[in-house]
Every structure is written in structure tokens, then in C-alpha cells.
């Protein structure tokens, strides 16, 4: 069983999705249970593989159908993918548990079909991360994209048009990726990542224009899927109009996995040397990333709808990640990888908290936050923890990713990026502070009217305690705790996981 863990983590959700389409008549509890079982199995397999990778100190390779690479397709799980795999399945499991009430609310009639798409998306994402073949990655990319289109379209009325736009942009992105893979195939004759990296080491290929075009097309395609500014326009509408569960599932994961793909292509298929010497647009990319970070946060500040605000925060975080990856030093790379894990958790936490608040209050603008500390103290507390993490307050994980990113930027002398990180942090602080104020103070006018005088200190505001249901609260609190845990255990994560995956030549 352990030998097959790499493939099980992809295959279990696929089979589950198949089963889920058929068990409609058994009712929604069966669907819920099956989904959770399959994703839990996927998580167990991912954790087993992680342990294996850390203990062995090298990548785990699994040959599909026992065909030898480079002819056969293989799954390669090294230190980088192992961490991301655990994050994907963990976040998916937490969302699945969380979805009990909201998914039923959004899909009263066809819950099992919704869960089938859910499982398929998870399978696609896990596959994208685990695969060692560039074309296989394209296929899985499209699988996840298609499932996400299906999931997103189950939002409110305006979701259809937003999903349509997303479909167009997503197809352009995936097609660019495919075209880039085509160029690489023409020049090298191989599709296996390890094989490609061997072949691409040859000097004449290093200088070849075709290879450069291939690289550019692949990276461009990935950037579209990642919603890097200015290619991000599809994301805010698509994610903010989705149902609560869909937003919690897709928002933390899809863009982060695309960042992972970028790292893979940049550093495993090509090499750090190639990217930073031959391509030499890293400074430009860092400027773009800085702009993404600052503009994303500022746009988030101006949003009234809570979920749109969160998607713009994602745009800013993608800016951090891209900048970190293109800084060309170990600290920047460590920051980027650590931030994939940290941001996945932070985004999940924020979306879950906001989802719970919207579920209970029925309002989706920032007015929903009024007085939330009295009504839903646990949710509000966890929301604040996630906010503190985004701003970068220790000991939460957001501080440590900022630490590494800033360190990398200072070492590389990229002061624009340093400034943008600091400014984005301050803007995020303003953003969350405004919400904190609303949450803490509630509606001030009511208080004054109630008590009659501003100086009466016995204002007994009888706001009912209406916390979110347990199935929503439990994953929320777990995620919040994970933010703290990841922060405190940064050293372990970096030492045992990330440090092993730093590419040579940095």
C-alpha cells in the first residue's frame, strides 16, 4: 500500500468522484461522508509520502503502469511537492468538513454532483503537483480547470458570466502552456521533466531561441492561471460570485498550485542558471510583482464586498510569491515556498471565516462585520488571527514568510520589492484594522440611543451569541491553530523540507 501512496492520493478522489455521481439516491449524508473519506485517504497518502521523502532525503518516484521513464509517465514527489501535496489535501479536507451546511444551501438538489466535481478538482490539483511529465501536467491542469468551471458556475446568477470569462482566460493560459510544451518537445524530443532538464543542459540548447520562446510561453500561460497582475482580471469576479464552499476550496489552492508549477518549470525543467542568466528579465518580473503586491492591497482596501476584498488580497500575495521566486537567492526562494504553504492556510482561514459570517448574517459586504465580536466571537477571533498573519505579525506564519522575502530582497538589493512589501503590509494593516473596528464597536449609533448617554458604562448590549455551526467552526479553528503552528515550527519546515528543495546554483 505504501508503495502506491503516490498514485493513491490522485486516484482515490477520482474514484470517489465517479461513485459520487452514482449515489444520488442515497442522500446527502452519504455524499458528504464519501467525499470526506476519499479526501482523508488522499491526505493520509500525501502525509505518508511526505514522511518517506523526508526520511529518505531524496525524491520518491512512481512509475505509472510500471513503464520506464522517459517513455512512461512517472510521478515524482520531492521535498517541494510533498509539502504542497499535504497542503492541498489538508485544505481540501478542511473545506469538505466545512461544507456541510453551505454546500447544501447552494446545491439543494444535486449535492452529489457538486461533490463529484469537488473530488475531481482535488484529484486534478494533486496530480498537477505530483506529476513528473510536462504534458501530463497540462492534462491535469485542464482537469482541475474544468472542474473549477463547473464548481464556480454553481454560484449566484452573475456567476455564469464570470465563469465564462474565467473559462476564456483559463483556456488561453492553458493553451499557451501547451504551445510552450510543444516548442520544448520539438527541441528536445522529451516530455519527462528530469529528462528535459538533462537535455536542456546542453549549451546549444541553452542559446536556442526556440527554447527561450518555449520557456516564455509556458511561463506566460502559468502566469495567466496564477492571476499575476496584470493578468488577474478574471479572478475577482469569478471567485467572489461563487458559492461559499467553492470559494473556500478554489481560492487558496488553484493559484498556489500554479505558482508551484512555475517553480517546477523554472528550477527543475530549466535551471536557476538558465532562468537568471539567459532569460534575464528577473528585474522586470520583480517590478511587476511589486506592483501586484501594492495595487492588489490598495484595491482590496477599496472593496466593500468581503469576498472581493479577499480575492484582491490573493492578487497581492501572488505578487509576493512571484517576486520571491524571481529574486534569485536562497532566502527569496525559501520565502516563496514557505509562503505557498502559509498563504494557502491564510486564504483558507479568511475565506472560511468570511463564509461563516455570511452564512450567519446573510450579508456579504463589510457591514456584516458589525458587532461580530459579540455575536460570533470565535469566528471573529480566528478572522483576526488570519488578518494578523496577512499583515505579518509574529508569531504567525505570515511574519516568517515576510521575513524570508524581505531578507531575500535586501540581499538581492531589490529595494523596490522591499518597499512594496512594507507598503503592502501597512495597507493590509489598515484594511484589517478597519474591519476590526467594525467588529469590535458594532453600530455606535444604536449604543448611544440605547443607553441615552455616552458616559454610562453599564451599556449592556444584548446581542445574541449566534456562533457558526460546529462543522464550520471546527475546521476554522483548526486552520487558525495551523497558522500559529506553522509559524512556530518554521525552523523545522525550512530545515527538513524547503532547504532540500533549493535549486542548485542559487
Amino acid at each position: 500500500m505504501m508503495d502506491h501512496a503516490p498514485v493513491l492520493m490522485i486516484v482515490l478522489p477520482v474514484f470517489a468522484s465517479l461513485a459520487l455521481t452514482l449515489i444520488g439516491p442515497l442522500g446527502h449524508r452519504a455524499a458528504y461522508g464519501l467525499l470526506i473519506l476519499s479526501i482523508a485517504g488522499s491526505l493520509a497518502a500525501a502525509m505518508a509520502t511526505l514522511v518517506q521523502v523526508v526520511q529518505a532525503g531524496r525524491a520518491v518516484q512512481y512509475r505509472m503502469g510500471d513503464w520506464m521513464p522517459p517513455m512512461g509517465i512517472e510521478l515524482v514527489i520531492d521535498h517541494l511537492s510533498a509539502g504542497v501535496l499535504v497542503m492541498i489535501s489538508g485544505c481540501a479536507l478542511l473545506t469538505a468538513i466545512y461544507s456541510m451546511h453551505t454546500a447544501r444551501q447552494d446545491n439543494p438538489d444535486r449535492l452529489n454532483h457538486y461533490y463529484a466535481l469537488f473530488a475531481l478538482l482535488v484529484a486534478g490539483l494533486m496530480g498537477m503537483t505530483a506529476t513528473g511529465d510536462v504534458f501530463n501536467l497540462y492534462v491535469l491542469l485542464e482537469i482541475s480547470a474544468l472542474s473549477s468551471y463547473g464548481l464556480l458556475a454553481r454560484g449566484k446568477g452573475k456567476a455564469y458570466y464570470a465563469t465564462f470569462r474565467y473559462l476564456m482566460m483559463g483556456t488561453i493560459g492553458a493553451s499557451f502552456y501547451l504551445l510552450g510544451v510543444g516548442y520544448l518537445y520539438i527541441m528536445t524530443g522529451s516530455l519527462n521533466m528530469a529528462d528535459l532538464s538533462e537535455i536542456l543542459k546542453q549549451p546549444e540548447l541553452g542559446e536556442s531561441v526556440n527554447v527561450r520562446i518555449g520557456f516564455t510561453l509556458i511561463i506566460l500561460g502559468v502566469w495567466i492561471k496564477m492571476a499575476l497582475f496584470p493578468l488577474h482580471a478574471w479572478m475577482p469576479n469569478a471567485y467572489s460570485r461563487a458559492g461559499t464552499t467553492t470559494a473556500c476550496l478554489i481560492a487558496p489552492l488553484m493559484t498556489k498550485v500554479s505558482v508551484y508549477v512555475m517553480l517546477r518549470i523554472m528550477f527543475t525543467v530549466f535551471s536557476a542558471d538558465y532562468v537568471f542568466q539567459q532569460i534575464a528579465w528577473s528585474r522586470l518580473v520583480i517590478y511587476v510583482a511589486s506592483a501586484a503586491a501594492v495595487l492588489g492591497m490598495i484595491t482590496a482596501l477599496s472593496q466593500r464586498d468581503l469576498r472581493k476584498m479577499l480575492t484582491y488580497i490573493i492578487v497581492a500575495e501572488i505578487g509576493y510569491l512571484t517576486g520571491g521566486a524571481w529574486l534569485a537567492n536562497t532566502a527569496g526562494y525559501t520565502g516563496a515556498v514557505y509562503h505557498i504553504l502559509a498563504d494557502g492556510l491564510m486564504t483558507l482561514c479568511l475565506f472560511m471565516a468570511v463564509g461563516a459570517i455570511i452564512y450567519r448574517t446573510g450579508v456579504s459586504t463589510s457591514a456584516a462585520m458589525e458587532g461580530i465580536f459579540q455575536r460570533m466571537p470565535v469566528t471573529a477571533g480566528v478572522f483576526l488571527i488570519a488578518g494578523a498573519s496577512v499583515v505579518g505579525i509574529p508569531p504567525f506564519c505570515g511574519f516568517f514568510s515576510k521575513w524570508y522575502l524581505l531578507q531575500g530582497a535586501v540581499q538581492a538589493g531589490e529595494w523596490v520589492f522591499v518597499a512594496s512589501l512594507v507598503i503592502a503590509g501597512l495597507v493590509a494593516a489598515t484594511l484589517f484594522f478597519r474591519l476590526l473596528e467594525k467588529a469590535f464597536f458594532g453600530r455606535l449609533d444604536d449604543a448611544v440611543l440605547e443607553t441615552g448617554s455616552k458616559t454610562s458604562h453599564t451599556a449592556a448590549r444584548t446581542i445574541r451569541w449566534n456562533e457558526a455551526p460546529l462543522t464550520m467552526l471546527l475546521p476554522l479553528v483548526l486552520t487558525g491553530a495551523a497558522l500559529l503552528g506553522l509559524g512556530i515550527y518554521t525552523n523545522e519546515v525550512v530545515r527538513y523540507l524547503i532547504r532540500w528543495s533549493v535549486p542548485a546554483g542559487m
Partner: protein
Amino acid sequence: MFSPAFYQAAPVIAVCASLGAVPLIAASRRHPNLREFWTFAAAALKFSMVLLLAGWVLAGNVVEVTLIQVLPQLGIRFKVDAFGIVFALVSSFLWIVAAAYTIGYMRSLSEHAQTRFFICFALALCAAIGVAFSGNLLTLYLFYEMLSLSTYPLVAHHQDKEGRGGARKYLTFLLGGSVGLVLPAMIVLFTLVGNLTFADNIHTGIIPPGTGDTLVFCLFFACLFGFAKNGVMPMHAWLPGAMVAPTPVSALLHAVAVVKVGVFCTTRVMLYVFGTDLMDALNLGVLTAYIVSFTIVTASIIAMTRDNLKARLAYSTISQLSYIILGVALLTPAAVQGGIIHIVNHAFAKITLFFCAGAVYVVTRKKNISEMGGLGRVMPFTFGAFALASLTMIGAPPVGGFITKWYLLKGALDAGQLAIILVLVASTMLNIVYFAPVTFQAFFGRAPDETTGPTEIREAPLIMVVPIVAAALLSLLTGIFPGVMMQFVRMVIP
């Protein structure tokens, strides 16, 4: 007395005592007396730990404990040395005093949300001791931020419009300074030096030789203005705004914990990160002295114009904090000693002053000085303590403030900075101008005409008077027996 292993654990216990009390306080929300018991128990535990550590440090030991290794090169690290002990002794002792006073105040006014208040109080004290015992800049930053966040609900306690405005300013300045200035400075320092551990003496600092002067200047001023809790102008605007908080908050936190943390962080960084040698070479000391002198004088002038007692005390605090920084910035042994001992003297005196203001409010609901005529005759203990504490501000014997003034003047003379001496003299005059009338009015003034005559007002409740008198007596004791605290200060700089 105890084994060294015990002293390794002691700092952790001291910091976490109140952290452990938080769930206990939360659980006993329906039993106020039990809840108050937890607060006292935690305070007593904290103080006893600090006291034991003080004895250990006096014997010449320094305790270093790494709690968690969070980053490959850095961890959460505690270091207990003489400098930290001075601050820790003051805050942990005053917490006990303040806890008593707070309970009296909150109960007399039947304040709402008392459980939340005491939880945040406990967290704030945990952070304050954490700052005192920090062994590197990362730990300092961590506890500094924790203090900002845990005191927000305290400042915003009344949850009214004024509270919102005050609390907003509070967090804006504090977080803006720390996230915007201190964080990048910390990262740049880390990149330069390779770690962030404080030096073990005040002379060498940790900045490698050969670092560009501009960079050092930028880092230094980022730290000076970034630790906005120190009230250096222009980052002072949060202090008067934070006075909307209930008086116990103003007393303990804004006279003792929060602002002292700011000053402590600033001076810790000045002495143990930059070091006196570097500051001397680049004339940073003199420059800082002039910058804070501006704050000293301006804040005093503004204090004169304020009628609200707490506002006047707030501006006085801003002015007095800069005394501490001034002392350290002058770099001569006497001045540095004066600056550090003022941490102690000012704390005892200011807390007394704020306690008095609170007592007056509880009894008479009055906030403005102009309305307090003749109150001294009815509240003799309160205003007697006030008078004694004002002497510290003015710097007259026999209270501790005199010791401070003495050392500062001597230090300024040693440094040859005559302008600074002028500043000190001028501010003493200004202090007299805005403190003396309060006492004078209270004892010898005429009561304003009211329907409720002053005969209906009695002295404040005992549970409030006792801490007030205790704090005032402490100010007196530090003046008569300065040696007790000075022995620690002499270990910092002989």
C-alpha cells in the same frame, strides 16, 4: 539559593504566568472574586520570579534561555540582565498595585466587560515582561507587537465614539511604526549582522565595522521613530488619544507598561545593538539628544494649555519619557544612569498621579482641573499623594525625581552639552508651572459653586486609596534610598 537550572526556567515562568492565567480568568467570568484571585495570583507569581532573578543577576549572573528555534538562525530568546531586571521589577511590582486599584475602580463604576478587560490586562503584562527579558531583536519585536494588539481592547474599552477615535490613532501609530519602520530595519540588520542577539555590553554594539554611515543613520532613526510607544515627537499623537481608556489602563499601561516598553526598546536598541562607541563616533547621541529635547519642551508647553487632568498628565508623560532617552543619548555614565533610573522613578510617580485622577473621577465624576478646587481638603490622602508625586516630575527632593535630575544634569555637564542643561532647567520650570497649581488649587482653592456641595464628597474607597498611598510612598522611598535600584543600574554602566 536555587540551582542554575531553576534560573533558566524562571524567565519563562515569569513571562508565561499571566498567559496561563488567561484561560482561568475566562473560565471564572461568573465568579468575580475568583477571577480577581487569578489576576493576583499570576501577578504574585510573576513578581516573585522577577525578584528571585533580580537576586541572581545581582550576584553577577546573566541568564540566557532559547525558548523555541523558529528560524534556522534565530529563536525566541530570553536574556535576563541588569537592564531588563530594572524594568521587570518595576512593571511586575506595579502590576500588583494596579490590580488592586483596578478592581476597586471597575467595581465602583460597575464597568461592563470586566472579564475581557482582565484577560487583556494579563496578556499585556505578559508582553511587557517578555520585552524586558528579550534576548534578541526578534523576540523584542514579537512581544512589542503582542503588547500593541492586547492593549487595543483596553483602550477601546468604552466602545463609544471617542473610544473608537482614540483606539484608531493608537493602533495606527503603533503598527505603522513597527510594521513600517522597525520590521525593515530589523531585516536589514539581520542581513548585515547574521543574527539579532543583543551585545553583552553597552559599548560594542553588534553592527559590523565598515557599514556605511548613511545606512546606520537610517537604521537608527527607523528604530527611534518606529518604536512609537516611546512618545518621541512626531510619533506621540497616540498618547493623548489613548486617554479615553479607563483610568487604570491609563495608569498602568500608559504610564508604566506601554510607554516604558517603548522607551525600553529604544534604549535597548541604542545601547545593545548600536552601542555607545558607534553612537559616539557618528555623533548620533548628540543628535538624538537634541531631537528629544524638542519633545521635552514642546510637550511641556502643550501640557500647560490642557485643562483635562488626564490630558495634562499625558503630555507630561511624553515629556518625561524623552528624559529617559535624553539621558541614554548623552552617553556619559552619569547621564545614562540618570536615564535608566528615571524609568523607575517616573513609573512610580506617574502611576500615583493617574491613580489620583481616577480616584477623583470615581468620587466626583470630575475630569477638569478647573473644577477641582478645594477637593484636597476633602480627599487629603489622594491629593497628598498627588503632591508628593508631582515633586518627582518637578525633580525636587526628597523624591526619586530629584535623583534623576541630579544625574542627568551631571551627565550633561560631563558631556559638555550646555544647551541640554538649559533644556533641563527650562523643563523643570515648566513642570512647576503646570503641576503646582493643581495641588495648590486642591488644598487652598475655592470650590466651584455646585448644587452638591463638597461636604457630600468623601475620600475615595479604601481599595483605591491604599494603592495610591503605596505608590506615593514608593516614590518617596526611591528618593531616600536610591541605592536599591541604582545597584542594578550600576551593573549596566559603571
